[in-house]
């Protein structure tokens, strides 16, 4: 991770977008930062947490995005500049609070929400354009087009937020958040910050003073005024600019990382003197005058943005309201099918769109290049399926789940959500996962399935969640299941880490984002206090885990909890040596013969196990094997052997 606290104004540093945002927040003098980890947003808080002590600020991993935003708002209410960060799904979680916050207004400390979208859902359960929240809830929103802007915009938003008295959103996407570029640093403020809550509820005042969303219609009206004020600021923003000829064959209207793709595309097509690019940094409210002044550049306008036609619709709506004397160009974009309204874009897709609109034929490479390149790549890259790491406790847990459900024989189902354990939808988890939705969603779904006995439903229902997800969004669903006596088993896959997003600590770990020791919120104590049957198992003890699951399934009668506890192998492996040396006894291994049929390399599929085709025997890949020893339990011939290392 880059050093974001370096006090060297005017020098250039190589930052990923998330570090640039964190640096921008430091330059703005924030005092408080909170987030729930989620790719591609996580590095914002982790880089701030790393320097928090030095910089005299506070940073935390909150239990979920809603609490993160609320905590940041609390700090703002007491006059501290604060920031909350999250991925697109977090915006959904936090939306109820935001809807109230825009009515109540913020405190004296500027308040900024960073939302990182994941086009193509590379690390997400869903693809979603979070910018709509801006329009929906009247929150001004900007989107940086490069790393420098990511830093500069963040700093600027704090100033605007305090001046106008509203929350601002900075929207970023994966290729800004995670790509790396030069950032010219500004100064780090040296200021003492004192927090004090002095907001009063003055009923006699004409202007509402309380930090409450009432009276709502009046507050709503004020928020519209604030949005108009933001629009005025946006009209003059340096983050909006036009580059290109005065009279262009085509005007590209773009924002965010698509700005970079558009520049690449125009350059590749050698159309710099024919195609102009109008790049917008402030997206909502639309800087209408600025847009209008540039629309006359061409009769053809192509919108290039990720994911939804947000800018496209805003501009088209605005132009529709203009008098006939104003320019009314022909619009191309997602509505016309020239640009995808899903997935990430790239220069090739933009080249294709420009070529189609302008009637050009452009071929970047020879016709056969693509297939040739693929063939070359395939010859060097071994085929890999999505899988759990070698030694991952989740593989063992899903082995136990699979066997318990098969032994039970009533076609039991597993509902789930997003986390490493989502991989259980495929061969890694023996296809056990049958539903996958938002954080904690599987437990909610299990609540419904578990109440269908009166309709003849007898399939056992297991809901899987990760440890961090348990704290995030599962507890209400569990309480609901206990209260309404829904028949399901909550399986908490406690690998003692928020593993998928980078091992961030959570309430069950005992350390904070800033690395300080703290109380452990015991999940078993919490669940037991709800008055339900709770079991704790070591997933590596396959027999015990399977039997415990079988007993709990047979037991029936309301929501129950089983905690499968084993530290994430990637965390353990950093601290300790492998516990066992594991090898295959070739005398005992019967390979593909009846009595095995390569159970370990065809079904169990730990990457540490390989198939020696020549010998017709299984083999341990000593480089990959983590020495967990679980495969010694599944080998039907006892051919896989372990010895304490």
């Amino acid at each position, binding site marked *: 991770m880059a050093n974001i606290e370096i006090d060297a104004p005017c020098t250039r540093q190589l930052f990923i977008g998330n570090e640039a945002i964190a640096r921008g927040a430091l330059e703005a003098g924030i005092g408080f930062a909170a987030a729930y980890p989620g790719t591609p947003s996580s590095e914002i808080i982790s880089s701030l947490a790393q320097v928090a002590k030095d910089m005299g600020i506070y940073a935390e991993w909150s239990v979920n995005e809603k609490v993160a935003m609320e905590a940041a708002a609390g700090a703002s209410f007491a006059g501290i500049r604060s920031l909350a960060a999250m991925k697109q799904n977090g915006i959904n979680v936090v939306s109820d609070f935001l809807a109230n916050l825009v009515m109540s207004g913020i405190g004296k400390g500027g308040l900024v929400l960073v939302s990182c979208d994941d086009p193509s859902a590379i690390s997400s359960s869903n693809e979603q354009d979070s910018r709509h929240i801006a329009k929906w809830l009247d929150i001004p929103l900007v989107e940086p087009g490069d790393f420098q802007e990511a830093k500069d915009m963040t700093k600027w938003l704090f100033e605007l937020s305090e001046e106008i008295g509203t929350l601002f959103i900075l929207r970023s996407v994966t290729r800004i958040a995670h790509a790396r570029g030069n950032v010219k640093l500004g100064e780090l403020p040296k200021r003492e910050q004192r927090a004090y809550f002095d907001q009063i509820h003055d009923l006699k005042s004409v202007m509402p003073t309380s930090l409450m969303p009432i009276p709502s219609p009046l507050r709503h009206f004020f928020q519209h005024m604030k949005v108009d004020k933001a629009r005025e600021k946006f009209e003059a923003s340096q983050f909006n600019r036009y580059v290109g000829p005065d009279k262009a064959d085509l005007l590209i209207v773009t924002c965010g990382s698509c700005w970079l793709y558009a520049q690449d595309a125009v350059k590749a097509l050698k159309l710099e003197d024919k195609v102009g690019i109008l790049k917008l940094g402030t997206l909502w409210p639309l800087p209408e005058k600025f847009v209008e002044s540039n629309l006359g550049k061409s009769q053809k306008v192509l919108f290039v943005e990720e994911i939804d036609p947000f800018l496209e619709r805003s501009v088209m709506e605005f132009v529709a309201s203009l008098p006939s004397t104003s320019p009314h160009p022909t619009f191309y974009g997602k509505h016309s099918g020239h640009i995808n309204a899903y997935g990430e874009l790239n220069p090739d897709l933009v080249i294709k769109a420009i070529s189609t609109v302008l009637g050009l034929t452009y071929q970047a490479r020879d016709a056969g290049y693509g297939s040739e390149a693929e063939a070359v790549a395939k010859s060097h890259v071994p085929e890999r399926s999505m899988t759990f790491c070698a030694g991952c406790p989740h593989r063992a847990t899903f082995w136990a789940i*699979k*066997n318990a459900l*098969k*032994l*039970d*024989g009533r076609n039991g189902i597993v509902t789930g959500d997003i986390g490493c354990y989502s991989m259980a939808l495929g061969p890694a988890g*023996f296809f056990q996962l049958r539903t996958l939705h938002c954080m904690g969603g599987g437990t909610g779904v299990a609540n419904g399935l578990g109440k269908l006995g009166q309709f003849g439903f007898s399939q056992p229902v297991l809901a899987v969640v990760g440890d961090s997800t348990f704290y995030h969004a599962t507890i209400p669903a569990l309480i609901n299941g206990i209260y309404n006596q829904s028949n399901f088993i909550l399986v908490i896959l406690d690998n003692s880490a928020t593993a998928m997003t980078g091992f961030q600590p959570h309430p069950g770990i005992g350390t904070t984002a800033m690395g300080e020791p703290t109380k452990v919120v015991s999940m078993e104590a919490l669940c037991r206090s709800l008055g339900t049957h709770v079991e704790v198992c070591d997933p590596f003890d396959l027999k015990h885990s399977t039997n415990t699951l*079988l007993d709990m399934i047979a037991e029936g009668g309301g929501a129950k909890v089983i905690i499968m506890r084993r530290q994430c192998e990637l965390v353990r492996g950093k601290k300790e040596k492998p516990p066992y040396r594991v090898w295959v006894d070739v005398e005992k291994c*019967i390979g*593909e*013969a*009846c*009595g*095995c*049929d390569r*159970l370990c390399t*065809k*079904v169990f599929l730990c990457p540490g196990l390989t198939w020696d085709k020549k010998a017709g025997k299984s083999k341990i890949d000593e480089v990959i094997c983590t020495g967990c020893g679980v495969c010694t339990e*599944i080998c*039907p*011939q*006892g051919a896989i052997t372990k010895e304490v290392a």
Partner: protein
Amino acid sequence: MAAEPKGCKELVNEVIEAGLCTLCGACTGNCPYLVYHKGRIALLDNCTISDGQCYKYCPRTCTDLDAISQQVFGKPYSEEEIGAAKEILIARTTDKRVRGKAQYGGVVTTLLSLALTEGLIDGAVLTKTSDDKTANPVLARSEKEIFQCAGSNYMACPVLGPYNQIPRDDSSKLGIVGTPCQVLAMTKMKNTPPINRANIRNVKLVIGLFCTWALSPDKFHRFLKEKLDLSKVKKFDIPPPPANRFDVYSTPDKISFPLDEIRQFTMPTCAYCLDMTSEFADVSVGSVEGIEGWDTVVIRTDIGAELVKTAKDKKKLETDKLPLENLAHLKEAALLKKKRALKEIANRSGDEKNLLYVGLSPNSAKKLLA
């Protein structure tokens, strides 16, 4: 006539899901895919082997009775009602440790214990009634462990599972006590020796039990659990006809259920079984109508004959002749089972020429179906 090579998928389709599984356990123990659990065989994962031992040894897949008879007796399948027999007699144990605990005459327990002490076997796979009164297969390696298995509980039990689990390199000599379906599976193994399991030649003694039907273990156990305090139960018994009772010896009283109430728990597959007397065993043992405390003993092979002779010589067993009237009854009952089963099979297949798993010569089949 032998079963064509098939795998676990076909076993599941043709036998398990078709309701024909006897729970003998022949497909379990050595296989990581097929596992016994609470009264059923579960398929945990898909095995890709197309010539599976699971399918090969299943007593409900195509079985060439002449071929396996040839293997055991050196001659084609006997048309006798109770199969090939060298001698039929009645016997009872002289061992006080066995009397009372064992069913009827205690012959099975006595023969096993003798086979162990004489060195004919080093252990035996048996069915044990556990403290919770479930039937569990065990590999007994001592006299004490054999005694613990004395007595019947009438529930189907995958007794061949522990046999299959014995390591390949284990050379222990083994005995097995089984019902007709279990003995049939074992005989199929003898006919085509299994791979990657202990040598089938180590099986030195097969004691068969008389059987009219077995109870579905999970369903029946649940029934008993609802009706009785199982911790107080000592013994189960179905006294010979015409009693028509299922007796549970409990403390302080004996509790009897009408046999018809118990029949609802019989394994559906038993309706398709031709064999009442474990026709492929070395020696078969069952009750005797009207002579309490004695067992009927059908000696079928030299091994069986030798063992019974030693037992007599060493005064472990007392023997007597089986009254002719009893023999006639026994044969009548055995024949009735064959006829009923074949009819059921023909009904199921819809064709008298398609006898599903039963590999009988057309002539024999015709006679039985007449």
